[in-house]
């Protein structure tokens, strides 16, 4: 949960994907995901193509397949939803493994599974190769309104303040004889949630005033090193979404 310069999902690296400017990667992720979602669900070959694309990008970014698979467990709830669909769905039914399942439900489950998984993989690849700080810089360069950038910047900085403050309060409780285990920790946290908020705010307020006194005007200085993306980098970043869009277009036309 400690999301600072490098958040939990970030994997240190210098691969070509890591070095691509963040705005290019964000645009590529969003375009690619939209292409996947627009694909008709019966075009099974297209989804194979997308999976191949994900594998290629992961290989170039040196993200191991095992890491990608374990992290996509976030999707499990939707898998449960998808499993329920063939049973709940209406319409024509087929016999499969001794169960009478709805065809519509089966296709729907496949649709949710395939599109959800590919979307999660795309986001994970973005997260694995981009620090949160770069992500905000990327959104800023994509002309996201300043007020949103400001809220997002503070959010990511204050997450650490919040986590640190929660840890301090826990230590304080422990040193006063509280011995929380497993789920019972939640009780101490729940009763102290208001205090946690206040303490974090007052610390955060001091951070903010310190920033103001050092000349903060609502915009953080751009980090040195990478400037805005040049045409070459935009072209390099456009390869993967272009292939995805082509696959989607072919699938839509042939459907």
């Amino acid at each position, binding site marked *: 949960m400690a999301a600072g310069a490098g958040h939990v999902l970030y994997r240190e690296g210098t691969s070509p994907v890591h070095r691509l400017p963040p705005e290019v990667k964000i645009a590529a992720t969003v375009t690619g995901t939209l292409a996947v*979602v627009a694909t008709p669900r019966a075009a099974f070959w297209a989804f194979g193509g997308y999976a191949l694309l994900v594998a290629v990008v992961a290989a170039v970014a040196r993200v191991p397949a095992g890491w990608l698979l374990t992290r996509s467990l976030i999707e499990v709830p939707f898998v449960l939803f998808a499993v329920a669909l063939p049973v709940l769905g209406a319409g024509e039914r087929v016999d499969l493994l001794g169960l009478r399942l709805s065809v519509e439900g089966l296709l729907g489950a496949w649709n949710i599974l395939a599109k959800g998984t590919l979307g999660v993989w795309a986001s994970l690849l973005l997260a694995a190769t981009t620090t949160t700080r770069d992500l905000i810089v990327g959104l800023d360069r994509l002309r996201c309104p300043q*007020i949103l950038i*400001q809220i997002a910047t*503070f959010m990511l900085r204050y997450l650490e303040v919040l986590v640190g403050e929660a840890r301090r309060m826990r230590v304080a409780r422990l040193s006063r004889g509280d011995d929380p285990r497993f789920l019972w920790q939640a009780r101490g946290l729940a*009763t102290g949630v208001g205090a946690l908020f206040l303490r974090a705010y*007052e610390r955060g307020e001091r*951070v903010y005033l310190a920033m103001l006194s050092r000349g903060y005007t609502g915009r953080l200085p751009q980090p040195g090193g990478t400037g805005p993306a040049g045409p070459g980098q935009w072209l390099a970043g456009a390869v993967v979404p272009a292939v995805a869009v082509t696959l989607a277009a072919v699938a839509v036309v042939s459907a």
Partner: protein
Amino acid sequence: MEPVAMHISNGIINGPVAAVFAAFALAALVVCVLRGRRDLDDRLAPLAGLVAAFIFAVQMLNFPILTAGVSGHLMGGALAALLVGPWVGALCVAVVLVVQALVFGDGGVAMLGLNITNIALLGTAASYLLIALLLRVVPRTPAGLAATGFVAGLVSVVVAALGFVGQYWLGGTVDLGGNLAGLAGTMVGVHVLIGVGEGLITATTVVTVATVRPDLVYALRRQGPATAAAPAAGGVR
């Protein structure tokens, strides 16, 4: 079931409906940006960031409900509306959703419009309307504020859940036949339970903040004479 992660994942709602809601969410967010700019002063800027961080953290606490398969998490729209007002509040929740979709893959990127509409816009709007109404009616005591926070939290979660049901009715990718009512029933039932948790957290947080730093609670600003005496950013420390 969907409530486990709360955020709609790619492929659950069809493309055209998602696109319509994306356009709607974008337009509404533009309004929030324009109105929010007026609200965002030196005191509100760090508070908005902290509210967003708080919601971000709180959305990771998943409640198991009934069975292992069904759980849900808090949304934070009511807390945001109470502390930073409806405009900045909706923006805070929207920022959380965008970062979660991009960084954690929680909620599909293509479904952001739907998620923002349900959680950031519907949840915050419903709770703020309730707050504005209730604060006029309830006694101006900590208990009154707690009750307001609780009700607003509870209702915002249920409204957001109904938003999902409405969207599923418009463009769910799987025809559930007559089961839509069943879906609505399950969603509301589960979310009333989540809403109780949300209401409790909203109430305790807002009461603590209002006791120590009433100047930080947006919803209380236009009341009472305390407004004029409110210290500037960090003035009291």
